[in-house]
């Protein structure tokens, strides 16, 4: 029974997703699904950030870098021509295993690239390694120091991508092939696949939310919150605080990279700005806007705001909007605007109720 009640928000979310699509179809605005799909992928990064910042209490100003590491790994591997290894025995073996696949490039030449699935696993593996290498020393730092370390890491990734020809420098990488997850389920930007891609993204977000909800309502989630509140007391209670912080950080980096891979296949490319400090800061702004330690708030706020931003609603004030969001939320409602809103509505409801009862009595 309680389990059912816990699952209710998930059902509502799924319903809302379906309703949105239906509404957009009825309004003949299904083209909006493209930006909504992208916003959902970005939301995954913010959800991961919510785990590290909201629950474990560790700042990260470098999550854009993990998104980029995922996206770029996928993009490079699936577009780079490995034909010169064709003769080598290991390449043949990998081809047998469908790690390498034959393909046509933009100019119609036959090339051999890594398959999207293999590239996906490579991206996740690389992220795992990088996040561990950065997280291990960085998470021993606190507060401002951790913030600067993660910011510095993000900038290193950003500048490296910008300065390297193999990553397309300032142009990024284009022509990333589509990714067939299963027969009939292909991640690509074709308008025919718009609806199915929207549902792929929505399902992915929903599944990840479910997994994280389970995680947060377990001994692991409590351990993370304990670390956030009082690290020494948590340690004295038997929690290996360093290991837990690192695992939470790596998990959230993996979520960012996962989003990066999907996003890159969906938009058929990725650019260096994805690793930029402004992107990383924007994720933090969105997490703050959603209330940090609030999976649903973070999902709704980040999908909504990113959607509006991608539709170009904020025009040339795009960055400024997110800066203002950061300032306003922290100075007015540091727990996010949803909590005070909920309280206000609760207050309103309780103020209305006695009146309702009085009316009943009168009737």
């Amino acid at each position, binding site marked *: 029974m309680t389990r059912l009640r816990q699952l209710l928000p998930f059902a509502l979310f799924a319903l809302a997703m379906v309703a949105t699509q239906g509404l957009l179809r009825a309004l003949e605005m299904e083209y909006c699904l493209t930006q909504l799909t992208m916003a959902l992928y970005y939301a995954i990064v913010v959800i991961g950030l919510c785990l590290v*910042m909201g629950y474990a*209490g560790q*700042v990260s*100003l470098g999550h854009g870098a993990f998104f980029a590491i995922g996206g770029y790994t996928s993009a490079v591997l699936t577009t780079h021509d490995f034909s010169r290894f064709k003769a080598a025995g290991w390449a043949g073996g990998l081809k047998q295993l469908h790690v390498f696949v034959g393909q046509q490039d933009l100019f119609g030449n036959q090339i051999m690239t890594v398959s999207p699935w293999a590239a996906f696993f490579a991206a996740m593996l690389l992220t795992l390694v990088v996040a561990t290498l950065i997280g291990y*020393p*960085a998470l*021993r*730092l*606190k*507060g*401002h*120091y951790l*913030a*600067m*370390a993660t*910011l*510095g*890491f993000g*900038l*290193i990734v950003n*500048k*490296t991508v*910008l*300065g*390297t020809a193999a990553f397309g*420098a300032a142009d990024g990488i284009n022509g990333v092939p589509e990714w067939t997850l299963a027969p009939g389920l292909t991640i690509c930007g074709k308008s025919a696949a718009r609806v199915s891609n929207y549902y792929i993204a929505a399902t992915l977000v929903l599944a990840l939310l479910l997994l994280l909800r389970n995680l947060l309502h377990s001994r692991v989630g409590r351990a993370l919150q304990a670390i956030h509140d009082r690290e020494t007391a948590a340690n004295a209670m038997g929690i290996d605080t360093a290991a837990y912080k690192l695992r939470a950080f790596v998990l959230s980096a993996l979520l960012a990279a996962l989003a990066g891979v999907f996003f890159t296949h969906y938009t058929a490319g990725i650019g260096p700005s994805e690793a930029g*400090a*402004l992107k990383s*800061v924007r994720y*933090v*702004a969105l997490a*703050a806007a959603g209330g940090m330690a609030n999976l649903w708030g973070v999902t709704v706020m980040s999908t909504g705001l990113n959607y509006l931003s991608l539709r170009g609603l904020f025009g*040339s*004030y795009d*960055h*400024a909007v*997110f*800066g*203002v*969001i*950061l*300032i306003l939320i*922290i*100075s007015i409602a*540091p727990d996010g605007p949803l909590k005070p809103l909920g309280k206000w509505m609760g207050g309103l409801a309780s103020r209305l109720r006695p009146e309702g009862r009085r009316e009943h009595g009168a009737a």
Partner: protein
Amino acid sequence: MDAGNLTLQYLLSGITKGSIYAVVAIGFNLIYSATGVLNFAQGEFVMLGGMVAVTLAHFVPLPVAVAGAVVIVALVGCLLEVLFFRKLRHHSVLHLIIITIGLSIVIQEAALHIWDEKVRSLPYFTGNEISSIKLFGAAISPQVIWVLATVAVTVAALHVFLKFTLPGRAMRACSSNPEAAMLAGINIPNMRTLSFGLSAALGALAGCVISPITMTHYESGAPLAIKGFAAAIVGGLGNPMAAVLGGLLVGVLEAFSVSRLPAAYNDVSAFAILLLVLFVRPHGLFGRPGGEAVREH
């Protein structure tokens, strides 16, 4: 040019940039010790200083424009403290970080809309781009002399201010022992505002003198802030004078990495130094390890 000359040239350019990082680092330190806020918007003061001075220079003589820019930006700094940090003092480190980042973005975007995305610069204070002074066989632009002299004088003046004047000592007292400072009748909120104003003024001055060399652009503040922070960390956060050494070190290392690495990776080396120092000696190269550097609440 022979190798020795080239080295000297790199060294000079490193010291020039490094002295600017040093000023930014001192700005970080001033605010950090007085308020506990690490002001991510520190670089924006430098950018604003340059921008305001460029605009004022259209109407008034250069020295007046520079002085005007310093005063205006200092007022902006004070205003930020009063508007945003007075009420927020009891907020968590995370909140303070976020709010200064938000300010940094908003200031940048405001600059973009007030001016535009064009690169501008102040005229050379004396001479022009091609005039140079020969020193030990290296060609030095007179503006470099301006930068170094300005930074040297400012740092010395600041040192005297903090050490020997009443408000300076009061400011230091607030950071080392706020309770005692309060009991001694020092108005701590005012000291905090003063630290923001002073720090902004320093940044603006640096922004003016460096503008002819590196140009000013609405986005030019953020990288300076990060390198300035690297300098502050290398020197040991909370120690304004060690920040000068930190700044010079970061500047020189960056200049020499340019000679080894492709220009595109220019900043990468500076950030890599930052990470290395943070991971290995978070208390700075010159500081002593203490719980404080790593443990914050």
